């Protein structure tokens, strides 16, 4: 069996005083692609934000192990240095900070944490332009403020660009496919496939089966009312698309 990257056991957690996750279990090993589907309000984004160490989330019970670390004891930047990446559902716009400055700072911070020297402006530009070409992104987006005035598709591509630069071990992609047209979806899926690490893993959070036409999952889980109610392979996603979540509740 491959190395365990993420191990979540009996997780009860929420935001402030509201309990949202109620006994969630999940084990992800190197090389695997996992998908979490589930109705609105089932706790998908709470789980993703918790994994990225967003503040104001409280864990009441259970644990999350990431590699040999207690993930809940890590800061957001520490978990990023250890190769954890969250592609946000709603990426934040940061007026006044240029995208290129942001991307370069992020890459060099992660390199520094591994003891690698920073990339100079020339090497960085070459690297970032290569990755942008793969994602069919306009280079002009480098010189605009981070996500400021970006279209929905541009924001999601920018998330995958960050993933491509930071080369994470575990990429969690929260509804990265939402709001994308078919061409953008293909470009984003292509980017994810090309940039994923063989020794790493991907956790996709999605409402739609269509992303799974491009990225082949090993496991599909259904999250409902804060816990996994069913797990299966890709056929589960197809069955859900066909029958809806009400079908699960009837079981």
């Amino acid at each position, binding site marked *: 069996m491959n190395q365990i990257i993420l191990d979540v056991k009996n997780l009860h957690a929420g935001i402030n005083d509201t309990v949202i996750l109620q006994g969630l279990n999940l084990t992800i090993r190197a090389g695997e692609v996992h998908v979490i589907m589930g109705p609105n309000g089932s706790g998908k984004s709470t789980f993703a934000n918790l994994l990225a160490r967003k503040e104001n989330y409280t864990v009441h019970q259970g644990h999350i192990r990431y590699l040999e670390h207690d993930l809940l004891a890590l*800061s957001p*930047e520490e978990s*990023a240095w250890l190769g954890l990446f969250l592609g946000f559902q709603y990426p*934040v716009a*940061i007026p*006044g*900070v240029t995208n290129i400055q*942001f991307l370069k700072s992020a890459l060099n911070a992660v390199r520094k944490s591994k003891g690698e020297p920073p990339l100079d402006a020339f090497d960085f530009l070459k690297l970032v332009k290569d990755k942008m070409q793969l994602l069919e992104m306009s280079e002009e987006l480098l010189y605009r403020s981070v996500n400021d005035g970006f279209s929905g598709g541009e924001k999601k591509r920018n998330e995958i660009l*960050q993933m491509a630069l930071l080369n994470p071990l575990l990429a969690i992609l929260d509804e990265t496919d939402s709001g994308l047209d078919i061409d953008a979806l293909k470009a984003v899926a292509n980017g994810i496939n090309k940039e994923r690490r063989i020794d790493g893993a991907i956790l996709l959070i999605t409402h739609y089966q269509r992303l799974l036409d491009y990225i082949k999952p090993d496991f599909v889980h259904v999250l409902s009312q804060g816990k996994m109610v069913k797990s299966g392979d890709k056929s589960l996603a197809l069955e859900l698309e066909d029958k809806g979540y009400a079908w699960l509740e009837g079981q």
Partner: protein
Amino acid sequence: MERFLIATHAKHSFLFLNGKLAKGSPALFSKDNEEWTIPKNTHIEDPIYLIYVQDLDEASPTPRQKKLILQEQSRATIVEYYINLKATHSIIHATTTIELHPKAELTHLVLQKMNEECQHISEMQLEQAAFSRYCGTAILLGGKLNQLDFVSNLNQPQANSSFGILEYTKCQQHQNINLTINHHTSHCESKTVARSVANDHSKSNFTGKIIVHKNAIKSKAALENKNLLLSFEAEAKTCPQLEIYNEDVQCSHGATVGHLERDALFYLKSRGIPEQEARQMLISAFISPGLQNIQPPELLNHIETLIYDA
């Protein structure tokens, strides 16, 4: 900065000059007492640095008065530094009058970085004639108590004024800014962008008023003051005002007070950028609109170092 001489010690110390002038090339401008004149049609490309060094303990206020006159169609960049080299308890009262004659263009930077024991009072009055352009920046960093009173008079048509302000306060510092911009006549334009960053227990007060007088039709005026509080104890008060006495104008004013955006900070950190660096990036982004008039651009790096080394 090496090419500029600095003179110190004199009680009313002022000085000094652009390298070119110090080397004895023909005088491009004249100075009579504290009146500096850039003659008609003269373009001075290199910035003129006026560096005021206070290094005496003074119980009574040290007055510093000067007048800058840019005659018709002249153009210059003037950079004023107010600093002290050793810790002194002093009060500086600087009064500056600026006259821009028709079609004159001034790029102006005032930078104040006194020690924590100083009190600095600065009064600036700007008189603008037809088609003149003022492009100014005031950066207030040091001092225990600072006051800036800025009055701008747009006296003839097509005068244009753009003013950026940055306050960066910490500890127990207290800063007051009072700004009045008078549109006395038609077809003038003014733009004021003020940014304040307050840390620790510091306080910042901003009052800005645009007055568009009765005959000043086709005026364009914008005033913006944004405040960033970096601690829970820091205070910012802001009061932007418009007084408009005719119907045919385009005017706007606005103010905000807030903390660093948590979501933006989290976003940067989630990409591995350490907390300190992430905060720095957001602060720089916040203040940069207040610094956009600064010329030459090389000065900007130097100024950013001064701001953050405080």
